[in-house]
């Protein structure tokens, strides 16, 4: 068989750090950029005699995600201990959920991908469960010791395990993006791969195209960006297909991705993996999720990304823009405020994604730091739509809005247009006068136009616009010009 006779099967295990104030099992604060070992308490350090107390907010977040994924929520679930010795694991075990997770099943529809029958691609989930994070070991090069930072130890995590049902590296990345969009929309995590609040391990296998059997799978660990996620999976698919086409067996293994050489590398084979000696966590009673609690959370859920995207697309927004806007809840919120202020959807999303985001990105700012309020941008878009201002004027007004120094008074686009003389001239008599002047001043061009050099129309429009300092309504200018030229 050749490479094209194989198809990959990918399953993802995603860890999402929850945006709670405190850790999964203690009141210790959680943070990302604190100095080492400052976000610790007796429980976090695994001091003798300390006990875990579940974080209700983390459970709440878990329930919200399970609802959003259509998973089955279990009224009774259980925490378990997973044992291994490592300095970053303060108790010698991690509290997680093993055979009784709080949510099973459900799925995630991946935008832009289709299933076998052309239907929207839905990746089914195996389970979602809660657990606590480990700390972080740092190996000091050349030193005889390592450093351990327990700030992250005990941070609340949701683990989301997909079925092996993802068909390509790109689809895997899209699945992760959709998951990120979802958790951000639900407000339960910053879900940033670079900062480690969203992490992913990928299980990859390949099989003869069309086969129902699964091949031997290998697990790629610690994929910490969307780019590397896709590259690593693609590299692993290549490696496996390569082995199979050469007639060599695939050995189940844990791998890491080497971006320098764009290759996956075996860290250890699975035969050598530890037995985690799972046992039920005796320090915690079974986790009880009352139906009333579920209903309360369901009632408070924001509109989900798929629904938001569909609503935007129905209003004329491009599919790609809708995906981008939903991906960043603050962006989507900005758009919704523009729409509420009466801005036409397509133009609103264009101005938001091209003009405003362009500027913000160039300045390294987020939408939250935008100097332009959505209502102001909406007003500008409305003015443009109704030809109150021209495109170039709108850009200038936007420049003023964006460049406002914080001490200056807030001026609306309309006030700026008035002040700076951007109000478009739509008075037909005034435009006709200007057109006549231009025709009179350019007799040669007019003659050439009438002789068939119709390209010169643009030149003439330009002259009129120049004469009116860009304020004339270009559409009207065109109409008047065509009429006068036709009159001869």
């Amino acid at each position, binding site marked *: 068989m050749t490479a094209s006779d194989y198809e990959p099967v990918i399953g993802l295990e995603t860890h999402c750090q929850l945006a709670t104030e405190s850790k999964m099992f203690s009141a210790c604060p959680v943070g990302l950029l604190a100095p080492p070992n400052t976000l610790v308490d007796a429980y976090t*350090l*695994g*001091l*003798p*005699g300390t*006990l875990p*107390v579940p974080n209700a907010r983390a459970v709440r977040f878990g329930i919200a995600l399970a609802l959003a994924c259509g998973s089955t929520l279990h009224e009774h679930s259980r925490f378990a201990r997973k044992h291994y010795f490592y300095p970053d694991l303060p108790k010698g075990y991690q509290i997680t959920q093993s055979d009784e997770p709080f949510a099973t099943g459900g799925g995630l529809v991946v935008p832009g991908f289709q299933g076998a029958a052309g239907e929207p691609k839905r990746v089914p989930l195996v389970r979602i469960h809660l657990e606590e994070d480990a700390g972080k070991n740092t190996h000091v090069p050349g030193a005889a010791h390592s450093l351990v930072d327990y700030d992250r130890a005990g941070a609340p995590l949701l683990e989301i395990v997909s079925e092996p049902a993802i068909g390509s590296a790109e689809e895997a990345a899209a699945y992760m993006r959709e998951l990120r969009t979802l958790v951000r929309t639900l407000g339960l995590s910053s879900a940033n791969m670079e900062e480690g609040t969203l992490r992913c391990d990928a299980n990859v296998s390949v099989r003869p195209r069309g086969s129902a059997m699964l091949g031997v799978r290998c697990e790629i660990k610690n994929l910490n960006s969307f780019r590397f996620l896709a590259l690593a999976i693609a590299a692993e698919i290549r490696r496996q297909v390569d082995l199979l086409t050469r007639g060599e067996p695939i050995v189940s293994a844990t791998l890491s991705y080497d971006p320098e050489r764009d290759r996956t590398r075996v860290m250890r084979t699975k035969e050598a993996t530890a037995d985690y000696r799972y046992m039920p966590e005796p*320090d*915690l009673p079974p986790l009880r999720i009352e139906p009333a609690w579920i209903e309360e959370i369901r009632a408070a859920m924001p509109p989900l990304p798929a629904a938001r995207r569909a609503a935007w697309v129905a209003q004329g927004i491009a599919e790609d823009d809708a995906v981008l806007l939903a991906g960043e809840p603050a962006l989507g919120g900005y758009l919704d405020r523009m729409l509420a202020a009466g801005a036409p959807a397509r133009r609103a999303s264009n101005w938001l994604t091209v003009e405003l985001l362009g500027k913000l990105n160039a300045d390294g700012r987020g939408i939250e730091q935008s100097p332009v309020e959505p209502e102001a941008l909406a007003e500008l878009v409305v003015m443009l739509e109704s030809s109150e201002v021209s495109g170039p004027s709108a850009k200038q007004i936007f420049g003023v809005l964006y460049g406002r120094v914080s001490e200056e008074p807030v001026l609306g686009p309309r006030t700026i247009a008035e002040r700076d003389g951007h109000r478009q001239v739509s008075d037909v008599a005034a435009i006709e006068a200007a057109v006549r002047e231009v025709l009179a001043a350019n007799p040669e061009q007019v003659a050439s136009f009438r002789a068939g050099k119709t390209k010169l129309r643009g030149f003439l429009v330009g002259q009129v616009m120049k004469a009116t300092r860009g304020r004339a309504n270009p559409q009207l200018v065109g109409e008047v010009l065509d009429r006068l030229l036709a009159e001869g």
Partner: protein
Amino acid sequence: MTPAEIAALPARTLASLVRDGSLRAIEVLAAFEAQADATEPFVHAYLLRARDSAAAAAEAVDAARAAGRPLGLLAGVPVGLKDLFVTEGIETRAGSKILEGWIPPYEGTHAARLRAAGAVITGKLAMDEFAMGSSSESTPYVAPRNPWHPDYVPGGSSGGSAAAVAAGSVAAALGSDTGGSVRQPASFCGVVGLKPSYGRVSRHGMIAFASSLDQAGPITRDVRDAALLLQVLAGADPLDSTCVDAPVPDYLAACERGAAGLRVGVHRAALEHDGLDPEVAVAFERALAVLKDAGAALVDVDLPHARHAVAAYYVLCAAEAASNLARYDGIRYGARVDRPTLRETYEATREAGFSAEVKRRILLGTFVLRKDSYALYYGQAQKVRRLIADDYARAFERCELVACPTSPMPGFRAGEKLHDPLAMYLADVFTIGANLAGLAAISVPAGLSAAGIERPALPIGVQLFAPALHEPTLLAAAAAHEDVTTHHRLRPPMTAVATGGHPA
């Protein structure tokens, strides 16, 4: 009052005399310290005497009284804690080398509640390392001895706590009971040991041995003092999710209810136990007769799975212990033996830090939790545990309490079972059912064995079990038994020499 007279008073009397100003807390402390000074050379109940902080605590109680502030239920009462209770600022090592030098930066719930009630914590009491043992001899330190005879063990694992109470060097002590570790030493030392129902008292700040079985409990001279300590310790704790959020009844009042009308169940088949000492059997029947005289009815109950309890217990407690003790790796606190690699450091630290019995249970627990043995051992033991709990639930449909001996034998000679772990494990046969089923249980003095050539006069205890949260019923029957007996007033002769005699 002479110091000896003071040291002979019950805890509740001491507290009330301190509250009304008849005694100063500092005088009370001095009386018990004198008793400890006299008995420690042969009892070795203490791992650590916290003299300075005890004096400061007693002075604080006296100052509070002088300032007119209200005093708590245990005002000025000297209390010793088993070494596995976390005490902020006082070394806590669960009797293990691996925690040597660890000064906790936080206060456990037990120490906090005792101190808030005005108790004066006198120090940390000896125990089997990590509470694993039934004789207090599994220790890298000097093993405590039975105040009734220094050649005999005080029982375990809360041996130091029971010995200190029996020796009169504390007014009360706190122990922990995972499979009988409060009740068995209490019976060996002739004092009262109460194991509250699982979840009645917080486990926050009690160094874990087997989390699903561990429960803190008081060891006292009489039943009412046990009720008093439970009053202070019981109740929900936001730092322990397994702690029960149920109202805390008036336990002292419950002691006055009497035993009339109570049905006491007896599992006769259990008394056919091979190793049951005839003198224990006699003492047990005598205690039943006392309860009957007090108006209780005796009924037969059947606990068909009781004979599997020891096997199930040792699987479960070993598994939980192996897990709970994984944190002692020398990385963050306690002793560390440095070696070139991480793995060697772990191995050397744990090799040097744990003694034989602890290692045995870690190995056993690690084995039973292996993926390929889990169902066969841990899973099976959990099933047995459920069956035993069901047995008790059925038994309690026919009676309010179940009675049985505390230990098959009175205290044994030091070293006698030290190298026979199975014989040691079987000493727990009567106590572990209460832990497996989460019940409330109490051991009360039931007399002494006859002094002879074979052995000296040694205390014998009997136990009562009640359903979870039925401590009031338990205390009512135990107090009724105590009210018409004098066993609890007997004091070890050697300690009496130390104090120059005592009333009673």
